């Protein structure tokens, strides 16, 4: 299940709870990825919208993929505003062996960027501007453009 939080993620708390969850389950490798809001192009914050029904289906498919390799995935994401230097995204992979964990994390994060139904806005002078040039059409887009 994806953990959705209003505003910035409490990364230390999330990391601790994930680590506690996994440490006695005999996984040998635990990898986390955290996305932190960078100070660039004059933004004050990023803001996120999530379409949860499609996100959770997307995530469930990844959990199945992880399971078939003996691994387990966790993920947390912010909705609403996340100020500079705060975190908006966290993912974790648990796996018995390191190769699976390293490869799965890479594939998961890339597919997340490409296909997870989340929209990003730059907040500048309190205006919310869709980050169009950094966004990617979901796989299969253009279906209705006939």
């Amino acid at each position, binding site marked *: 299940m994806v953990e959705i939080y209003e505003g910035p993620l409490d990364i230390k708390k999330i990391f601790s709870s994930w680590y506690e969850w996994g440490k006695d389950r005999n996984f040998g490798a635990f990898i986390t990825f955290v996305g932190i809001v960078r100070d660039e192009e004059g933004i004050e914050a990023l803001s996120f*919208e999530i379409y949860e029904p499609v996100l959770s289906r997307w995530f469930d498919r990844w959990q199945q993929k992880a399971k078939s390799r003996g691994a387990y995935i966790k993920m947390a994401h912010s909705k609403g505003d996340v100020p500079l230097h705060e975190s908006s995204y966290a993912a974790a992979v648990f796996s018995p062996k390191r190769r699976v964990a390293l490869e799965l994390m890479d594939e998961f994060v890339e597919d997340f960027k490409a296909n997870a139904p989340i929209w990003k806005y730059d907040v500048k002078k309190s205006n919310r501007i*869709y980050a169009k040039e950094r966004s990617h059409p979901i796989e*299969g887009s253009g279906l209705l*453009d006939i």
Partner: protein
Amino acid sequence: MVKVEFLGPIKKEQMSVDVKDLKELAQLLKSDPDIKEWLKECAVAVNDNLVNSLDVELKDGDKVSLLPPVCGG
């Protein structure tokens, strides 16, 4: 009636339309100047499942969602 919703940055209220499949819906949306430009870069979900084919029949109460380009993280 089929409910159509526009997600993320698309500035358009959801609407109810009387169409029998995605092809018919596409024709309808093409004629809407607010939406036309989004069509080529939107993914489509029917009842929250992404679809990859126009051969999807729609029945009363179905929900179609348009998902514009994404950028999580």
